[in-house]
Structure formats: C-alpha cells, structure tokens
C-alpha cells in the first residue's frame, strides 16, 4: 500500500517536473532556479541535517564550480587571460561543437575540482565543531570571493562573460532547465539510496554523538570528508550550469554570494525540515515561491524581510514543515505512536 502510494507520488513529481517548462514557458528561468535551490538545499542537508555539521560556506563550491566551468570552456578554445581582458568582446566566437564540449567538460571538471577542494578544506576545518565550523566555512566563502575578485586572470571584480547559448533563446531556457532538473533528480535518487546505506547510518551516528561514533570504530574524519566532497561535487556542477545559464557573472554578488544563495539554502532546509529526505525539497519550493511572489512588492525591503524570515524560521519554526507534520500526523511517516492505555491494567 505504502509502496504504491510512493510510486504514484514519484511519477506525479517526475511528470510535473518534465511538463512544467512547456506548460509555463514564461517561467522557464524561475523554474530552473527552483531546481538550483533544490539541489543546493539537498546538498546542504547532507552535512547540515544528516551529519550535524552546519556549514555556512557551501556557497564556496558554487562559486568555484562557476569559475572552473567557465575557465575550462574558454580555455579549450582561447587564452583565458586575453579573453577576460576583453570582457568577452565580439571577436571571440564559439562554434556549436566548441560550446557543448566546453559546457559538458566544464561541468564535469567543476564537480571533480569542487570535490577535491572539499577534501582539502574539510581536512583543515572538520576538526572544528558546532559554531566554529559554521564561522570557519563562512570565512572560507568570504575569502574565496575576495581573493577571486582580486585575481585579474579570471576577470577580477568584473567577472567573466560566457558565450550565449547557440540557437533559439527559448530552447536555451528549456535546455538549462533540464540540465538542472536532471542533476536534481539524480541527486535526489542518489540521496534516497545513500541515506539507507551503512554509510548513511554512520553519518547519522556522527550527528547524534561524534565521540561515541568514534569509539564504536567509525573513522569519523573519513566519513565527514567523503560526505562533504559528494555534496561539493553536486554544488560544483550546479554552479557550472548557473555560469552558462547566467552568461555573465562576477565574484562577490553572483559566484560567492554569501548572503543570497549561501544563506537561502540553510533557510530552505530549516523551513522544510532538517535531516529528512523531502524536507529540503519542500522547503526550497515554499521559499522560492514565497520569494518570487513577494520580492517585487517589497521595493528594497526584501532583504530586511529575508533577515526577518531567517530569524522567525530559526527561532519559532526550526523543525520545519516536515518536522511539524511528523509531529501532527506521525502515521504518514510510518512512525508508530504507542498510545498510553487509559485502563492502566494490560
């Protein structure tokens, strides 16, 4: 019965995500951004929700992914320094073949390099616990943006302008939507399997009590590093896709956007429900819809509203939608609640 419901649920979600860009062609970019939010929220939850390591710096991998993908795509054809110097002026043309080779190779390398970076940074920072880890990773993200914006070879504070999608603009929108959607679906299915494995149980043990997990013979550092590098892999790819979708990006406001996407992903996960599979997805959808519907009416006050939303979510609603539902309707989640028998003699 349960299985049947799940199959129906998954097919409906798949069908909706497949049809959405054709039914709502005007919202193609917004829908793609929604998938981006889902991807980064799911990956944030891998360390934040499931492993108990609340990173404020996952956006670092998004930025690194953007830059790696862009540099690879440009570097395959032209000299990167000269290209960025000209700010993508008209002389630099890309053929269709060059564009797509650069795109896919760039995305792949973005993922791989982000994984490796995560291993290195994780090795340095995973000894930090709790808030120190959060502040340390926030520091990594801010430092990344500041350093890249002083690095002239990749365009400095100006950023990089990538070639436009060859072909029809509307086709491009759908193309990037499906790139995001495929990465998101692969990530979701991967996590669904991942959290059920022994590995998933081990990272949950790290969240619940790291010292005990250590004492039980779990090599905690190895588990933490692998989990974070998987998360970084997907964030890196998402960053790479964003780079091509946005065409032009610059370091502080787009690539290493600490207070935009960097904090959105945390809010999405908290809103939806930390440490659950569906929580980040639900949270991302709610947050994105709320943001897109209300943003334009705030006229400059949107960031104030965002700060208020963070505070309210964190202070009053930390269990999130799924946590609240699990409390109200435990039977939906397969949690059996033992009713206290009133008779007293059983």
């Amino acid at each position, binding site marked *: 019965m349960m299985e049947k419901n799940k199959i129906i649920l998954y097919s409906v979600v798949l069908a909706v995500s497949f049809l959405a860009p054709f039914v709502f062609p005007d919202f193609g970019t917004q829908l793609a951004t929604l998938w981006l939010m889902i991807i980064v929220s799911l990956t944030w939850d891998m360390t934040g929700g499931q492993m108990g390591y609340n990173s404020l710096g996952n956006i670092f991998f998004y930025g690194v992914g953007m830059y790696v993908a862009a540099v690879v795509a440009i570097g395959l054809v032209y000299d990167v320094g000269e290209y960025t110097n000209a700010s993508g002026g008209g002389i630099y043309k890309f053929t269709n073949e060059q564009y797509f080779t650069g795109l896919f190779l760039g995305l792949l390398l973005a993922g791989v390099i982000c994984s490796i970076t995560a291993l290195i940074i994780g090795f340095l920072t995973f000894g930090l616990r*709790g808030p120190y880890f959060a502040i340390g990773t926030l520091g990594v993200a801010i430092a990344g943006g500041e350093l890249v914006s002083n690095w002239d070879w990749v365009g400095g504070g100006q950023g990089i302008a990538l070639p436009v999608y060859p072909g029809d603009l509307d086709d491009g929108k759908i193309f990037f939507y499906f790139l995001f959607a495929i990465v998101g679906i692969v990530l979701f299915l991967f996590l669904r399997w991942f959290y059920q494995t022994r590995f998933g149980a081990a990272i949950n043990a790290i969240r619940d009590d790291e010292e005990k997990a250590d004492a039980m013979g779990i090599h905690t550092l190895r588990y933490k590093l692998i989990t974070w590098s998987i998360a970084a892999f997907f964030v890196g790819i998402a960053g790479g896709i964003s780079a091509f979708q946005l065409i032009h990006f610059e370091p502080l406001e787009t690539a290493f956007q600490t207070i935009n996407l960097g904090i959105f992903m945390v809010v999405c996960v908290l809103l939806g429900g930390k440490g659950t599979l569906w929580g980040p997805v639900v949270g991302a959808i709610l947050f994105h819809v709320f943001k897109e519907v209300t943003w334009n009416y705030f006229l400059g006050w949107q960031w*104030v509203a965002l*700060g*208020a939303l*963070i505070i309210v979510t964190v202070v009053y609603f930390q269990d999130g939608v799924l946590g609240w539902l699990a409390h109200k309707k435990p039977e939906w989640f397969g949690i059996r609640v033992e009713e206290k028998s009133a008779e007293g003699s059983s």
Partner: protein
Amino acid sequence: MDQFLSNISLLFEFPIVNLKIIIDGVMIGALFALAAYGLALVWGVMNVKNLAQGDFVIAGGYVSWWLVQQGVPALLGVPAAFIVMWGIGWVAYKLVISRVIERDLFTSLLATFGLAIMMAQLMNLMFGSDTQSVDLGYDTLYFADGLIDVPIAKLIGVFMAALLAAGVIVFMKSSRMGQAIRATAQDARAARVLGIDTEKVYAFTFSLNAAICGAAGAIIVMVWIIQPFYGITHSIRAFVIVTAAGLGNLPGVIAAGLGIGALEQYGAHIFGIGYQQAIAVLLLLLVLIIRLIQQMKNRQVLK
C-alpha cells in the same frame, strides 16, 4: 608578484615605514579590541555567538554621523551612540536573543546572522550605500620628516576607546551589576539559586555589548570610514580576536586586537588595499586552524 616583493623590500629599506604601519594598526586595533571585548562578554555570559556584532558597530557609526549632519558636535556622537545602541541592543535582546539562549549554538549563530542581514539592509535603505566618515577638522602631527603622520583625531579616538574600556572594566569589577554578570558567567544556575535575576543580567549584558559596539563605531566613523555592508568584516575581526585570545582573557583581547590591527595594515601595505577584507577573513581561518592543532595535542586517544 613583483609588486608584492618590492613592497616588502620597501619595509627593509625604510624601517621607519614599519613604525608608521604599526602606529596606524595599533590605533585602529584598539577599536577592534573594543568590539571584541563586547563579543567576549556576551559569549562568556550567555553563550551566544553574536554575528551581528559588526553591524552594531556600523549602526553606532551611523548614529554619530547622522547627529553630525544635524549640527551636533562630533565628540558628542560617542555618548549618543552609546545610549542609542543600548536601546537597540535591548530591543534585539527581547525580540530575538532571549529566545535562543537556551537553544543549540547554531540556532543563535543563524538568528544573529539574520539580524545582521536585517540591520545592514536597514542601514542601506536609511543612509545609502556610500562610504561615510566624519571630519573632526583637527590638525595632523608629523614626525620623522613627514613619513609618520598621526592625525589628532585618531589620538582622540584611541584615548576615548581607552577611557571606555577602563570604565567598563571598573564597572565590571566593582558595581553590583558587574558582580552579578560575572557570577552568571561562572554558573548561571547557581546565580539563579542565589537570587540573581539572570534574565535581567542577560538583557543588561547584551545591551551593554551593543552600547560598547555603538561607541566603538562612533569613534570609527571619526578616524576611518563606515559603509552599511562593512559589518560582517567587523564581526569576523571580533571573532578572530576572541578566538585567538580566549574567553575571559582581557589583556589577551587587547593584545590580539592591537595585533590584528597591525597585521591588517601590513597585509594592506604588501598586497594592496583591495585585499584588506580577505586578509581579515584569512586571519580567522589561520587562528582557527592554529587553535585546532593546539587542541589536537591535548586530545587523549587510546590506541
């Protein structure tokens, strides 16, 4: 790269430049130390890591700047910022902080981060995103053939910072409230048992912290510049200082504050002013990693 090397060799060719950098760094570092002392106070007493610390500093700066625009003498801005930020700190405590004290640390960190975003944006809307400063109109003293310049305004700023720090220390040592704060920091439960209203102590401590930050900001606007989004860097500096010095170590906080100020000036001299924010942040990572290695030595492992 060549430019960095030539900047370094300049330091050796003209040793007097070192002195100038250190004087500049120490003068600005005194103000960092003030904000860091407030952070250490809140951290120690109620175990809240306040990421909005830097935004309190900037808000204090804007209070002073706004008053100067209205024709109030600039030096009066410091006590005014102290009082106004006391009020804002109290409101922030009642609305947000009081609800996260008992919760886990990430909650308070994230809640104060939300507060920081909100404050930065409010200041951006109210005062615009330009950098601002207040000119006191005093002369500049020159030493060593004009290689070292010390604006009198900066000297006044350092003097006021020292005065404020001394006032806070005397207050904490001798007054009834100061004793209650210290007792709460040692053991909140025991303090409650002995009849101290810890809720009141928390509110007082957080307001005092905001007020200290506000006064520091009012001095910073006289000797340096402020901008709505500079808050996060000030917060990070405060974290660097407290992490490097440790909690409840006042001489350490002052020394670390002065040291960070000097290091940042050196970094800005060698790598250029564009790297100043990056240097502050990288110092944080450096301090965290050094602390980590130190603790690893103490960790006992069964093999």
